[in-house]
């Protein structure tokens, strides 16, 4: 399962700091929600369920954007390398 690296600091404002590289990032509110859910160990299905009750979004569309987003997280090396793949 996808895991955010433990040492990554995420604040409520969506500010992300990677102490390993010194880089910082900002998340939009949707991105922040997803990252927090991933951090709390939720699976894609659970995350989608939460989103579907709160937002106007189809599963297909959500899946597309979810994977695009998590691919970016991987590219930025914010996830554990031996997580899901």
């Amino acid at each position, binding site marked *: 399962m996808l895991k955010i690296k433990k040492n990554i600091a995420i604040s409520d404002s969506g500010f992300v700091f990677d102490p390993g590289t010194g880089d*910082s990032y900002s998340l939009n509110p949707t991105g922040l929600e997803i990252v927090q859910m991933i951090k709390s160990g939720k699976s894609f299905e659970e995350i989608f369920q939460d989103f579907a009750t709160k937002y106007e979004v189809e599963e297909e569309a959500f899946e597309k954007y979810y994977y695009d987003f998590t691919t970016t997280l991987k590219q930025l090396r914010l996830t554990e390398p031996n997580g899901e793949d």
Partner: protein
Amino acid sequence: MEKIKLNIALSGLNNIDSPGPGIPVTRGLKDSLLIDPKIIGLAYDNLEPGPYMHELIDKTYKVPYPSDGVEPLLDRIRYIHEKEHIDVLIPNFDSELFTFMKSERTLKEMGIRTFLPTLQQFEERHKSNLPQFGEKYGVKVPYSEPIGSIMDFRKIEDKFEYPVVVKGKFYDAYIAYDFEQVGIYFNKIAAKWGLPIVIQEFVKGTEVNVVALGDGNGNTIGAVPMRKTYITDKGKGWGGITLEDPVMLELTHKIISQTKWRGGMELELIRTSDNELYMIEINPRLPAWVYLAVAAGQNLPEALVMLAMEMPVKPFSHYEVGKMFIRYSYDMICDLKEFEQLSTKGEL
């Protein structure tokens, strides 16, 4: 005497190795015996040092770039004004001046005062207009002509002697020693800044500068001449010394009185070996070395604020000759929390 409390917003907080004038202007204002300023920084980038220099800058707001247009910038200024009640705004970047000059009236209606050159003064002193400027005001300027293609230069090559200076409309200048080099620099600059390219006579000599302030009626409120004693590879002064030079001052008075210059300016001059002064450029704002003038006895940032407030200002008549500055860099230690706040909230 009771100091006047004023909220002063200013930009140019990039106090890096080729610094903006924001911090030096702030130091002048903090030294003032007349004004008790609250300094509101306007920042474009999360890593401008100014916002983190709390002993000088009281509060910082990020603002959109002038290239986004007048409206987004004014919207942001309106928001800041609601919170801070800005009395005077001092833009310190060249790229902002046009936008703020265009917004002068709107700002005034909001209750924000500025003290800027007029659009005409601003346009007239553009590099590509230098020869006309020189002719109109009787100031010696290097001979120059704009060209649209390198073939254009073939037609006028006879009018120049090598080396010549190849200049972009806004930025960049190279010295070319033959036709081939003109071609190389032409293409290099044109790719970056577009056309026309200005070909300028190369004037050999020592670069000297004047920082000055005009009241808009033709009077010079203050002027201090300086020579850079050390120039970095980016062409910035790393050290400088004030000069006693009546000729430079006279030239400054002449330019200010004829153009009725309003606001701060920096004159870039070349003194040739036969002691003639050529004007290379007018920067339409106070330069980053303005604190040297403050230290030499002319607090020009303070005077500029007083003029903006329409308060009486007595022209300076003296300054200390031989006053020096040496620029240094300094590693400030900052808190990540503050960086987070500026980058996510846009305020610090």
